[in-house]
């Protein structure tokens, strides 16, 4: 290695710019390919209960589940922080387990987006994004909703 570095000449003048451009391009294309490959594995997809019933996602893969909290389904476990409830879209139900502090307006009958993974037939949520807006509404003004979607991303680590 040593002898080589001593002898290694400056790159031929003619080619230096070309080599630099090519190296930069290769690195950036590499970054793009790597990103595409990783994203196809790591992005978490959005499901509703009937989609899970029809075509269950891989176990342990990060997904998001959206729907309504079924009436009468919220049950708090004795430890005081773990809850079980059912998310429904009117056609199918998915049981959900969650440990943590629930969002302010998480109540039966409200809309919810849960982030987590399937373990067996149960969806284990790392995080709940309750749907409630005060000043802002969905579509054009969905700030408050996304405040919780940020929370969601915080906890998928």
């Amino acid at each position: 290695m040593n002898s080589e570095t001593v002898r290694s000449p400056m790159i031929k003048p003619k080619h230096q710019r070309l080599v630099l451009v090519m190296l930069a391009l290769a690195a950036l294309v590499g970054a793009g390919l790597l990103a595409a490959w990783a994203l196809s594995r790591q992005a978490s997809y959005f499901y509703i209960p009937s989609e899970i019933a029809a075509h269950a996602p891989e176990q342990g893969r990060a997904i998001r589940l959206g729907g309504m909290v079924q009436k009468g389904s919220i049950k708090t476990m004795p430890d005081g922080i773990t809850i079980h409830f059912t998310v429904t879209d009117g056609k199918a139900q998915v049981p959900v387990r969650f440990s943590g502090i629930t969002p302010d307006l998480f109540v039966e009958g409200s809309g919810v987006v849960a982030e987590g993974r399937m373990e067996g037939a149960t969806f284990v949520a790392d995080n709940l994004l309750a749907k409630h807006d005060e000043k802002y509404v969905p579509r054009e003004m969905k700030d408050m909703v996304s405040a919780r979607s940020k929370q969601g991303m915080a906890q998928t680590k």
Partner: protein
Amino acid sequence: MSDNTEKPRNRLALWLPLAIFGGLFALFVHGLMRPADNNVPSTFVGNPLPQFDLPAAAADRPGLATSAFRTGKPRLLNVFASWCVPCAAEAPQLAALAQAGVDVEGVAIHDRPEDLARFLANNGNPYAAIGRDDKRVVQIAIGSSGVPETYVIDGQGVIRYQHIGDIRADDVPMLLGKLKEAASKGAGS
């Protein structure tokens, strides 16, 4: 500028940033044209309204109960609040609907009477009745996730359609269409 043989290749690489930016631009245009729809639709569409009986929220309008929707005529149920900016923005459209002969019922969410009176004075009052829902009981019961939302209820008290967000001017004909549809369905069932 050094060598003629490598110039064409260099040239191609030079266009790359512009091409990437073109791709980004196309993606942005596409994203703008089709805003992401992250709404949670109510699962109560197609179901009858739950039982409720709300007290009056405004002095000159009665309160709102489920029975008001079983008159055989389709109605709009508008979930709103005086503290909500888009609710003020949709007021002219609601007024236009009321002008067109549509019965609009209101549910005021988490509101104070004096704020509501001011809101109605400033933005007009298209409502036939306004129920006062301080604890969001009705809002949650009909699967509404925010304000404003507007429901089309048929003559039998069944929820036929849910509109999330403010009613824009171009939504008015669509809602009139939904009401007409609800009228035929409500009569049929």
